[in-house]
């Protein structure tokens, strides 16, 4: 029971990270490697306002999400927009530049000291099996479900949403239905960054501290979740998150006494290889790219 509960709790976090990755992938066929660092950077903004200035949590959270959105939009404007004809992989490499830049700025401004952010809601939460599920973790599940449904409605139900989905495959068609590609692109990167920030805000209380570069592992798990789900499917991101969370929790429980540390990362690597080699379109993805 315990690994399952923990798996779902962490799975929701991974799913949240994965939703942002999936949104950007759907709109641009690019995997953004900067999601983790955008999230971390936004946490510093929240931390400056709440822990340092004593403002309420929601003020800090709003600033974080706004700041992240600005980073995403800025990246789109200064980099992605100038790479219309470039190979998609080059844009992915550019996101590495963004991630390194953000990590270095964090290090320069705030050092390596781990920082702590208050949880949005206090209390130890509900006991499930032998573990407590905190209010934040419950919120994560709810937010994940809400975001998933909301984004699905946007992508399926509106011209603009269809434009996001079609932008990478058939830009001409998007232009013909009267949706401006530059708006779609800006929205995709901005919203993707906002999702990274939301994920970071909701997962920080579970990890309890953050520092430059700290999101790397979580981000990899989120990336695996997105991949397991099929990279382009929002429901897949959700399902992939849970699958990754549960597998990780079971591996961790089984290997607690092992001489070999960190076997969960080996399990992630193996999972990636199995998914990519056996079923490249993932659990719920449409077609292999």
């Amino acid at each position, binding site marked *: 029971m315990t690994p399952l509960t923990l798996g779902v709790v962490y799975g929701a976090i991974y799913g949240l990270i994965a939703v942002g990755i999936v949104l950007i992938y759907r709109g641009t066929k690019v995997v953004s490697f900067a999601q983790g660092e955008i999230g971390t950077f936004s946490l510093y903004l929240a931390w400056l306002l709440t822990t340092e200035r004593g403002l309420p949590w929601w003020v800090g959270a709003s600033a974080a999400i706004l700041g992240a959105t600005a980073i995403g939009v800025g990246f789109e404007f200064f980099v992605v927009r100038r790479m219309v004809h470039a190979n998609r992989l080059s844009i*992915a490499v550019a996101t590495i*530049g963004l*991630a390194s830049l953000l990590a270095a700025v964090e290090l320069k401004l705030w050092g390596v000291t781990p920082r702590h952010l208050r949880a949005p809601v206090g209390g130890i939460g509900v006991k499930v099996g032998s573990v407590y599920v905190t209010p934040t973790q419950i919120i994560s599940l709810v937010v994940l479900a809400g975001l998933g449904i909301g984004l699905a409605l946007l992508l399926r139900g509106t011209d603009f949403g269809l434009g996001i989905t079609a932008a990478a495959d058939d830009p001409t068609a998007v232009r013909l239905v009267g949706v401006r590609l530059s708006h779609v692109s800006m929205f995709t990167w901005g919203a993707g960054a906002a999702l990274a920030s939301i994920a970071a805000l909701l997962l920080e209380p579970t990890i309890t501290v953050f520092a430059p570069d700290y999101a790397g592992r979580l981000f990899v798990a989120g990336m695996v979740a997105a991949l397991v789900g099929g990279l382009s499917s929002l429901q897949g991101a959700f399902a992939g998150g849970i699958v990754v969370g549960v597998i990780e929790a079971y591996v961790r429980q089984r290997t607690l006494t092992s001489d070999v540390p960190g076997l969960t990362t080996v399990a992630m690597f193996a999972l990636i290889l199995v998914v990519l080699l056996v079923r490249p379109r993932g659990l719920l993805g449409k077609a292999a790219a």
Partner: protein
Amino acid sequence: MTGLTRVPAAIRIAVVLVLFGALPPLLGRTLPDLLTAPRAQTLSYGAAFAAAALALNLLMGYAGQISLGHFALVGVGAFATGLTASPLRLGLPFLLAVPIAAAAGALVAFVLGLPALRLRGMYLAIATIAFSFAMVESVFRISGLTGGSGGIDIPRPWFGDFELLQEHDYLAVALLLLAGLWLIDRNVTRTRLGRAFQAIRADEDMAQAYGIDIVRYKLLAFVLSGAFAGVAGAMYGALFLGANAENFELRFSLLLVIVVVVGGLGSRGGVVTAALMFAVLPRLLSAIRGWELIVGGALLMYTVARHPGGFPEAIAEAREKKAIKERERSGEPEPALPTLPDMPRPSGLAERPREAAGRPLLSVRDVSVAFGGLQAVDGASLDVPRGKIVGLIGPNGAGKTTLFNAVSGLVKPQSGTVELLGRDVTNLAPHARAAAGMGRTFQLIGLAKDLSVTENLLLAQHSVAGYTAPEALAWTGRTPKVERELRERASEAVHALGFERYAHTPVKFLSHGQQRIVELGCVLVTAPELVMLDEPSAGMSPGAAENLAVRLADVRDALGRTVLLIEHNIPLVLDLCDDLYVLDAGRVIASGPAREVAALPEVVGAYLGETVLV
């Protein structure tokens, strides 16, 4: 440069060794204040980092295979050095530990390369990140193997009783190792190894059509890159007298990506310069410490957005564009209409069997290809007799190119056989068919567009370059002689094409028609038995198409080659082809002598419509 290459390799290497070996003590003696021990250590660190950058450049810059976890391979080399050289472990001499570190890196890279055969681009990027985490968080922390969280001790190199504890002495060793890697890397790029890598990076289908075994060369790129990374690991480990998992975290791998991209993918000098700048400058000048990643991240984004080839290429391109403009301004006439190279068979080419008398050179029997539910080719058969030009026509979507791909091996037919020179090649990979005597062009032009005309002509000769990979890496055995021959042939071909002025121009700066001619030259330069051309006149002006027709007739009449041709330009087809096959909805609906076929009512109906012919 050319003057330098005339000096025998051994002497050049000796000079470099002496220089590098003598320089540090010399500096140490004359400039003792400048080269302090910490500075020497920093320079050694720069050398190790440059070695790691060369490793990633080989994989990513030459072969186009992305790796975001390359520092994990450096780690493999460092731990392998510790396990073999540490007195507490095997205690082998350092000189033995370096090749072992290279072998360990190569082995792990080989295993990493296996999934890379199936994974491309973004997926490979993700897999390599996960690989990095699995190595750093797990494998590198196994206490029995790597000393766990405390890490492993690695000794400095020692010779007899003399251990290189002085930083100056170690710097000499580090620079020697870096110079060694540089020379090997140079041998990669001036032989068919590097050209095969670059071809794979440019276009895998094209690479196979020139006889390059892409599975083999991708794995070779991983193995060589892993070996380089292993040596870099040995340099690191010995420098810091130890290694632990944290030294090889993902962020170092990503810094390496920054260095290689900003330095210029595929540019050896640029990459080493960038590596030295990123590793050495922040440590020498405390004022800029901490800024390197900020600047690096920004530079990376700027580079990929503006100059994807990095700064060296940006400079070269600017120079090329200027030269083109000057040529235009000076009003020099365009080169005369080109001829095609008529050259003797390459010496590296084994004598090919001839088809039995009365048998066609190429025989395709009942080939069917389906993509999902779509029957692209449906039981097509055709014969191409030696010394003839056979045309394949049909409406768009009739399956002409698919049939071409089935013949050249790029798609696997569900049923049917392909025979070349009386030999069943149905189950051969495309590169093996190329080696067996098939040459082909592509609708979208099968050239490495970033490479020059000469370089493309060299890469096209892959399958006649008869030397092994170890010979190439050491520039020994047959390599120098064969390479000289290949270059002579390439330059003959450039002359024959009349492209002297474009010999060193990247192909992407040529017009479409010019690229077509270069592609034809590349196909002909290895004297294939069968020349397969996919819409050669597409995108050509009428005048150029006419010239092409004359040249193709030469290919048959003067060079004695056999041609299979897909073409939409009906007058050209009727002018040129001996036999004609008409494909419609995947089936051969008519075949026979060209003019007779073109006059058949069903052909006119299915394909030619109301066009009045002849």
